């Protein structure tokens, strides 16, 4: 299967399972909502019944904002201009690449979100691999079946990422970058070095990400139990199909960049209240939905690539499918799944 075919196939599978997209959107929304309500309480409490609320509502009152920030702690401390429009994207990506820590409540939300994805990943991959509706029972059943295995994989991934951020990042950005640029008196040269380091560190993250992604796919598609084995198998897969694996990742990344570029133009500014406020919110939720679809596209297209490249997927004779057989088992039954589509 070519990169383009996998990319197409990924979108087909994502769009064929709207419930999954809706589900992860709801998860993203529901997790953010209570924190947003908490922040709203803090904002309301600080504004009180003041006349300042009028300017805060109709546009921006930066003086009030700074006054709020001066006394804010916890969630309130994250209320900075970076939340407005496309700055949020810059702030968040920059935060990750610069290894910036997050405050308690936000860090907890991130942890919960990651855990939520870890739980759903089994079901999502299972659904994309089977290419048929499996119903809520089947979806959550698969999520449950793969949860512990994926959790073990998550431990491995977490350790690798932790090592990257705890040791490689400081080594690169606090030691090497500082040493290399300490004598530089031209900013753009220093930025070029930093960019190189971002690419290097980002490249490492992506490399790990690709292997872990295919480890997840192999764990689910091939009903693997060993996380270490899945990682080794994923590594073998990427090593044997580097052009497809990396090409597909790049194509998906390019698509994500298109989404981000569109957002940089469409992101609403401060705006007012009433209809304009809700319109801005809807636009922002459309962007969040697009980002979620992109995340699902990574999963679906990588699953498609793996399945399309998997030797036994297209020729092996089929055992009788009996759920919860693995998607691979299901795929090789006569007249079904990918095998059928390729015949």
């Amino acid at each position: 299967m070519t990169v383009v075919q996998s990319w197409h196939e990924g979108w087909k599978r994502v769009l064929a399972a709207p419930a999954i997209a809706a589900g992860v959107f709801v998860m993203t929304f529901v997790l953010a909502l209570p924190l947003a309500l908490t922040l709203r309480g803090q904002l309301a409490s600080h504004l009180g019944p003041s006349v300042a609320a009028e300017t805060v509502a109709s546009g921006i009152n930066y003086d009030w904002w700074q006054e709020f920030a001066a006394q804010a702690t916890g969630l309130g401390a994250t209320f900075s201009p970076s939340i407005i429009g496309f700055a949020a994207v810059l702030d968040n990506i920059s935060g990750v690449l610069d290894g910036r820590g997050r405050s308690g409540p936000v860090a907890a939300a991130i942890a919960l979100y990651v855990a939520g994805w870890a739980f759903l990943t089994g079901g999502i991959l299972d659904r994309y691999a089977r290419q048929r509706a499996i119903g809520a029972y089947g979806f959550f059943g698969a999520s449950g079946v793969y949860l512990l295995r994926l959790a073990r994989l998550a431990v491995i991934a977490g350790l690798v990422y932790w090592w990257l951020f705890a040791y490689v990042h400081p080594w690169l950005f606090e030691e090497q970058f500082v040493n290399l640029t300490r004598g530089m008196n031209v900013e753009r040269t220093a930025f070029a070095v930093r960019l190189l380091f971002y690419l290097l560190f980002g490249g490492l993250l992506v490399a790990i990400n690709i292997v872990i992604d295919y480890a997840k796919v192999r764990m689910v598609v091939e009903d693997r139990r060993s996380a270490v084995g899945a990682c080794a198998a994923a590594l073998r897969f990427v090593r044997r199909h580097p052009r497809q694996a990396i090409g597909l990742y790049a194509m998906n990344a390019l698509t994500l960049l298109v989404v981000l570029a569109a957002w940089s133009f469409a992101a609403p500014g401060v705006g007012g209240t009433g209809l304009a406020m809700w319109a801005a919110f809807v636009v922002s939720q459309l962007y969040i939905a697009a980002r979620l679809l992109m995340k699902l596209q990574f999963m679906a297209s990588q699953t498609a690539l793996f399945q399309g490249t998997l030797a036994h997927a297209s020729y092996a004779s089929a055992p009788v499918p009996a759920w919860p057989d693995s998607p691979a088992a299901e795929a090789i039954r006569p007249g079904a799944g990918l095998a059928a589509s390729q015949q």
Partner: protein
Amino acid sequence: MMKLRPFAAACCLCGAIAAAPSARQESPAPPADRSAAPPEDAAPGALSPRNANYEIDARLDENAKVINGRETIRWRNITDQPTSELQFHLYWNAWRDADSTWLRERRMAGLYRQPLPDAWSSMDVTALRVRDHSGEMRDLTGHSRFIAPDDGNTRDRTVLSVQLGRTVGPGESLEIEVEWTSKIPRPFARTGWIGDYYFIAQWFPKLGVLEPQGWNTHQFHAATEFYSDFGVYDVRLTLPRRFVVGASGRQSARTDNADGTTTHRYQGEDIHDFAWTASPSFIDLSERFEHPALPAVDVRLLLLPEHRGQTERYFAIVKATLQRYGEWFGAYPYGYLTVVDPAFQSDSDGMEYPTLLTGRARWLAPRSTQTPESTTAHEVGHQWWYGIVATNEFEHAWMDEGINTYATARVIAETMNPNRVEMRYFGTFIPWSFRDIPVTRIDNDRLAGYRLNSEADAPWTPTYRYWPATASIISYNKTALWLHTLEQRLGWPTVQRILSTYFDRWKFRHPKPSDFFDVVREVTGQGHVWFFDEVYRSSNTFDYGVQEFRSDRLDDKTFRTTVVIRRYGEAVFPVDVVTTFENGERVNETWTGQDRRIVYEYERPSRGATVHVDPDRVLLLDVAYTNNSRTLRPQTDEASLKWSLKWMAWLQELLLTYGFFV
């Protein structure tokens, strides 16, 4: 940390004992100071006393990062007291080791980073001679010792005392020869080298200021700057030929030497310091500032190639500041000004020296944000408030930094449109300008910083005794805010008259705080003692607010509206209280603000609508302005909903960003 506590406590205690103000009293008249008198034997056309004149011959050893220098100082005692001692600043010894007062204070402030091994600097006087009555030069090298007049730190070597062995009487002159060697630091406090860029300031042994009470020669402190007498500087700098050089004064000669070096001669009159810069990368640009009522100024811009796109912006803001400061306060008298575009990581940005200043530019600098404008305007402004009105920055930093911050904010407000809030990402390399958030004059008065540390120190405390981490907030922010408050109260024409009178009265001299307050009294006819008691002689915080606002129906035709206004802060300021009613009626009260609270009750045919304390924002020092108003129909729900929705989208975006890892 434990070791530093007694030191810090000693500083505070000394400050309290030495400088306790007399509450609610006018500042005492300044002691007799002959420097305030017109120079008696100064050269024709001299603008200043010219009592500390320097002839310097210095050579840069680029490989060793060393400057070898020789200076002849012609100094005149312009006080009415004799002295038998000389005191020199040897500023670069502040970075000789970690035990200097400068670095101790940086540690206290939490701003200390272990310098790299090659970062340290030094300044060693190798010979010091004084011409005696017979005309012979007498060697006093062995008669010197380091002193620490501020904190007794015996490890600090930034002040050198030399016993003359004779007295120098009032009006008497002395010729002093000094030879020295300085190791140039990697950038510390706006001076040093990085790559082939040099910014060299406070680089030569410099005399303190003899005052009637004795020498005023403070150690180098982390939060303070400088103080010295006016004079004529005639400086020869010898560097490798490839360097483009800029310096205080004006270049009068340039001689190529046989050894591949070039000697640049700069001369400056009526200045009190001399700094220079050198880089082979500088693009040397010039424009002329012309104005129908002000003297022309040749503006030289030494620009680095990566900021070439900002040439126009640099010149525009320099000219705008020369124009406005000239019109507001008085003419810039020198006819030339050198603006240095500082190199990345040189730590030399945003600094002022007589007729030479450094701006601040970034490689990526959106037009709608105030880099390089804000810093450049501020440093140009320092030519008035520091360069010409030469206050003692060790003791009264607010007199130049604060006044200048206030005036800079005015210039930026008048000249920059748009001027938007900027944030930087990706290691601060990538800027983002927020089109919806304009930078206001109050932002440039730096209210945000003041709000966080409003009680850090009282401005009457000598600046070098301020807590180093927050010193600038009191010197810059608080002063700018109270001057703006004064403007709101008295009007710009009055404040402009105060500042122009003060400038005219004290140009080329060293005013004290009382001199400024005297001018305020003279111009306004009032001492404003109550005001300066609050903003200058105390560290109290201003915070007025609405404690209660309700409107109850009494009968079919009448509502009783109750307003309770509260003074939450300790500081007192008269405020207006405006109550509006639903029928459009408006009641304006003026409250002295003295008591803790005041209650107003109105019986009106209409329900109350809003109440606002200080609605015209006269008191810019109020640290919590949100509580200054209340409405009976608040839009709090809408406002908080709108912003929490935006924040929620940001949080979702953040979650998705971290979703990458799973």
